[in-house]
């Protein structure tokens, strides 16, 4: 147990979950207090002692599945190496009996059985069918270093979950349901189909782990924490997760910034009032008087490239900036591709920033010509139209990858903006190594900025915003 716990903690640390030594000790102590045969209890004990952030649960769950869910308990007890041939019979722990019965069914009958299992909410049977389906169709090749998505695909082309969904729908159609009841029923069905799919995934994972060992599988399956997901190549599901994390994150950041501002009130000495006060003590300045601290709330101008490749990044940054706008005196947003447009009022009128950022790409005058970003033109237009409104309290933040499609850079604009503005920052969602490759001209823009920061994930975005003043 100690060795597997150590390996498990090493994996958590590799993903980026901070696990301290004392938490490690706690986990070991917790495991002594509970029966190790109960998987659910082991899981909650480890979760309670090792993971102190809700966002990390997803990564924890997967790692736990890999390290502690690998083999069915019966096999683990025997300690037999689980070859692919042996897995047949032992697929579902409810018994070898169902396994052998299932293997005689035709493809159609198996699908049928799955339908009955899902409709009848029989979790054990779903597991058994999933296991049989993986046996038959996944065609797992021992020793291949893969994450198993192809096996999943192969299994699901035969075990037809979409057909299952529509059959569930049809059976519900039989009953006469009102609109609301139908909606609820459909959501319930979707949840059950998703559960069946998860069961197949878990089954494949079990086979992979039986084939290679947990550490090796963990390496191929490892998924980044939400804050480490890169904006540029996040999948749709990951973007959804990010959207979920951004609101609580923004709340925390606002609290932090407010706290910082409150505690950094060092104002200048008020010389006149100090001298005036010192008259009471015979000209000796015993009590110093200070000027009232001015609430130094900066004004923010966000200038965001929203062309296809970087639009997700721009969306998140704008969303974050608006969520913490109470910490700034004003947030103004401009979006550009090859034209530029101010969208502050659009964002302020909208009830929900997320819906707006979805629509950003559609129908704004940010696209003037062909929809390829032209930083030079956009920046120059920005300077012409709004440059006069950039003041000494304004921080201008440019969001983009500086991929200019070989247009003119017009980098002098940045120097001009910087002279008027308090700060000029450039956030680039690409890794530093990719800057200045291809049509990226970061090197030409960089000298004009106070700070050019790589901003590939929420963690980096967050540390940038927290350093703002």
């Amino acid at each position, binding site marked *: 147990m100690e060795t597997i716990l150590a390996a498990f903690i090493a994996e958590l640390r590799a993903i980026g979950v901070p696990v301290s030594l004392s938490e490690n000790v*706690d986990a070991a102590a917790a495991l002594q207090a509970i029966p190790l045969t109960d998987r659910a209890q082991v899981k909650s004990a480890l979760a309670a002692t090792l993971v102190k952030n*809700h966002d990390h649960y997803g990564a924890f769950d997967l790692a736990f599945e890999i390290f502690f869910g690998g083999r069915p308990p019966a096999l683990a007890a025997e300690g037999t190496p689980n070859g692919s041939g042996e897995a047949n019979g032992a697929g579902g722990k409810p018994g070898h009996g169902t396994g052998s019965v299932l293997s005689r069914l035709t493809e159609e009958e198996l699908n049928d059985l799955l339908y009955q299992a899902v409709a009848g909410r029989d979790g054990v049977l779903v597991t058994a069918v999933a296991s049989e389906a993986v046996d038959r169709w996944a065609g797992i090749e021992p020793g291949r270093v893969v994450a198993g998505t192809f096996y999943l695909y192969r299994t699901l082309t035969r075990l037809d979950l979409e057909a299952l969904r529509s059959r569930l729908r049809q059976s519900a159609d039989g009953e006469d349901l009102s609109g609301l*009841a139908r909606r609820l029923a459909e959501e319930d069905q979707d949840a059950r189909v998703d559960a069946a799919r998860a069961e197949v995934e878990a089954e494949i994972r079990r086979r992979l782990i039986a084939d290679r060992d947990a550490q090796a599988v963990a390496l191929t399956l490892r998924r980044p924490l939400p804050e480490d997901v890169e904006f540029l190549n996040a999948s749709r599901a990951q973007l959804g997760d990010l959207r979920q994390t951004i609101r609580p994150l923004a709340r925390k950041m606002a609290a932090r910034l407010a706290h910082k501002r409150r505690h950094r009130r060092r104002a200048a000495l008020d010389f006149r009032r100090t001298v005036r006060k010192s008259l009471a003590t015979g000209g000796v300045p015993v009590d110093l008087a200070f000027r009232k601290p001015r609430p130094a709330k900066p004004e923010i101008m966000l200038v965001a490239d929203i062309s296809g490749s970087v639009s997700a990044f721009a969306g998140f940054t704008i969303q974050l900036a608006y969520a913490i706008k109470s910490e700034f005196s004003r947030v103004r947003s401009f979006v550009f591709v090859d034209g530029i447009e101010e969208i502050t009022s659009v964002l302020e009128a909208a009830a929900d920033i997320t819906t707006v950022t979805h629509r950003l790409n559609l129908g704004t005058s940010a696209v003037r010509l062909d929809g390829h970003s032209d930083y030079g033109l956009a920046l120059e237009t920005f300077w012409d139209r709004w440059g006069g409104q950039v003041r000494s309290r304004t921080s201008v933040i440019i969001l983009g990858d500086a991929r200019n499609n070989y247009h003119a850079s017009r980098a002098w604009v940045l120097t001009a903006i910087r002279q008027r503005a308090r700060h000029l920052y450039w956030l680039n969602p690409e890794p530093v190594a990719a800057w200045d490759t291809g049509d990226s001209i970061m090197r030409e823009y960089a000298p004009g900025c106070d700070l050019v920061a790589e901003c590939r994930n929420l963690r980096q975005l967050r540390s940038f915003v927290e350093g703002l003043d």
Partner: protein
Amino acid sequence: MGVSRGTEGGELGCFASPAVVGDALGEAAYLADERISSVVFLGQRLGKPVLVEGPAGTGKTELAKAVARMAGMRLIRLQCYEGLDEAKALYEWNYKKQLLRIQAERTGGAGELADWAELEADIFAEEFLLSRPLLTAIRAADPVVLLIDEVDRLDVETEALLLEVLSDYQVSIPELGTVTATQTPLVFLTSNNSRELSEALKRRCLYLYIDYPTPDREQQIVLAHVPELSPVLAGQVTGVVRSLRQLELKKKPSVSETIDWAQTLHLIGATQVSNQLVLDTLHVLLKHQSDIDKAATELAAAR
């Protein structure tokens, strides 16, 4: 360090195993899932505080209360807010009483300044100590549950106050020395996650995230609170709530709001949840006008 509780095993029989904890919590009118009961069990067994996080209205505070009820322990509650300080959380010297004591000494006459040392020892005695929730919990002779509510509202600096109490169950008072707990209190901290708690605090605690319950469990919770409701209706209630929670709302309906809604439906004598009924009573579940509008259009589209 934790397992020094053998002596009181008898009266804490309800902490025998996670399953027993779950059942006992159920009797105390709190339906715990497996994770909750096993973390409560571990908290007691390891002698560690439990940090409970989760969305508002999922029963974080209620958990601590239920544990106190179930074990028949006294509940000591420290409600946190911005600006809470040592004097409100730990202890304070009863300044007025000390002053009186000094005056009484002076009017008593005799050897005034001679026994100053004695007097000083005297006015910093237990008698003049006003104990606040944290110290009360430490000094309690009977087993207690200490609830530190909404710990995220505390200033970052004040948070450090808790560390000594949470890790060693002791309070250092410069004039008196260190007060150590005779029995380890069960400590629950709740947080709405409005700011990041310090690593030091998190490290000392077990972590429990209470999310919205699964529809099945929520149905049980609803039925436990509104027993008159028919199970079918309760199922529909939780179905609608689950559906609403999937929308992107400013404030998703909490468990307590679900219960309120079930109560409302019971009072107006509904037997079936219909589209119109949901629209009419949506304001019980959702508290923002924009959320209500959004949910109304979504539900209307379901027809």
